[in-house]
């Protein structure tokens, strides 16, 4: 479904600060895969995700989504297939706009934004139903600006927003890194629930080992821009946090 073929990316080429972020990455992702990518800071996992979403251009290699080469398309063109939840809860939502307006934009991720009023009663009802599953009582506060909500609430809403329109790939960019443990658990459970419900194909990057052990059917360990270790489905299920920890020579 999504193929990354020999992806290379170097920052600050030819300068003293030259860093090889990705070198020769090959990943083949099947439909409904839930791929977890772990790695320390600077291992290239964020760059990899940015390369898929289009916010970083790659130096060489191919990104093929459903038989279509997309590595040359701009970020806003790839959004037809790709939805993204950011590490920073503030980046995934527009704080000054109401919850309803945020959802309207999300619902139009795959469509052009026209000069017509889309936030009508019917749409409102649809959003209310979607938000009700969060059980946060937000369904009656659709006019409230996004900025007045907590980070956990905003991350949860971003997740619900991402499935407002059709999507092929869901990118989770350390969605819980800025949250407290309880909110993090809530957001990840919600993600899991949505992924199963909508049969989504997901790439999830994290440096939280317990999350990496608990979620997903595949696991890739990135180090200095290269794939150091890869674990697939059945083995992944047996993998424990302690084993994962031993991958990193922290001690």
């Amino acid at each position, binding site marked *: 479904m999504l193929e990354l073929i020999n992806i290379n990316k170097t920052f600050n080429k030819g300068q003293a600060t030259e860093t090889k972020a990705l070198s020769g990455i090959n990943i083949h992702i099947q439909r409904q895969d839930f791929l977890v990518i772990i790695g320390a800071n600077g291992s290239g996992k964020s760059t990899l995700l940015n390369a898929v979403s289009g916010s970083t251009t790659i130096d060489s290699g191919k990104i093929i989504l459903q038989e279509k080469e997309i590595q040359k398309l701009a970020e806003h063109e790839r*959004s037809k297939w790709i939805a993204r939840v950011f590490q920073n809860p503030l980046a995934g939502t*527009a704080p*000054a706009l109401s919850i309803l307006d945020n959802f*309207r*934009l999300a619902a139009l991720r795959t469509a052009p934004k026209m000069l017509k009023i889309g936030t009508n009663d019917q749409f409102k009802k649809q959003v209310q139903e979607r938000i009700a599953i969060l059980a946060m009582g937000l369904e009656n506060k659709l006019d409230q600006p996004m900025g007045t909500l907590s980070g956990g609430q905003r991350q949860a809403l971003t997740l619900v927003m991402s499935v407002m329109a059709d999507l092929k790939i869901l990118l989770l960019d350390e969605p819980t890194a800025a949250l407290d443990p309880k909110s993090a658990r809530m957001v990840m459970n919600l993600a899991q629930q949505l992924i199963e419900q909508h049969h989504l194909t997901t790439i999830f990057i994290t440096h939280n080992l317990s999350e990496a052990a608990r979620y997903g059917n595949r696991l890739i360990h990135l180090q200095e821009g290269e794939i150091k270790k890869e674990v697939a489905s059945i083995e992944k299920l047996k993998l424990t946090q302690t084993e994962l920890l031993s991958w990193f020579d922290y001690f």
Partner: protein
Amino acid sequence: MQALCFGPLALGLFLSMKIFNIPDITTDGSYTLGAALTAVGMASGLPIPLIFIIATLGGAFGGMLTALVHTKLKINALLAGILIMTALYSINLTMMGRSNIPLLNYATLFSQLSFFKTMDLNILVILVIFVGIVLLIIGYVLKSDFGIAMRATGDSETMVRALGVNTTKMKIFGLAISNALVALSGSLIAQFQGFTDINMGIGIVISGLGSVIVGESLIALFKIKNVFFSLILIISGAFIFQFVLAFTLNAGVNPNLLKLVTAALVLVIVALPRLGFSSKIKGI
């Protein structure tokens, strides 16, 4: 009444603040551009509606140039605005041929339409209707799906791009609309005061900014969420700002100091909430 002429200007700056998070300096140039196009149009005997269209398109063109310089050449938005504003000064002067054109002998919007015998009342009613129509159009645009995307562009660019909005295109459209409104204001003022002057736009961005800040304080004060009410309050902001200015001038301030007073006033408006806030924190 002059404040009503400034209504579109305030709306325009409100838009550029929403999209860029900084006031668009092109305003100084496109405001005069609107007035200059009006003067030239009237002198060559064009009908008033056509003049409004030309002035508006001229402003939109100026805004598009600034947005193109900013997005395609990656030049800081403030600098891009200053560049285009400076360039527009020469264009305006060349178009006008001289630095001041009186329009008293030509038919204006206000002399062509007459609903009432009293001239002042007539002008007032025309302006209210005119600004009302502009307000309805802009309100509709902002409420539409396109408008939501535009408002979000200044708010959270990462999110907007991830949701399939071409932010470059949004900025170009947004600044075009914003400067079109500013030029419309220039055209109204030229017809209202009966002349176009090459220097009339200097510092006008500050007046507009003052109006927007007053308007936004009102929006925050009344916790307004409706787009139309917000726009009405922005125009009320222009009204209050002009009123305070007129008051200071009446109080005997030398008219030569007008720009100084304007700048000081905006400074006070901007600074007051911050000073008040920090003293509260100290109090705790």
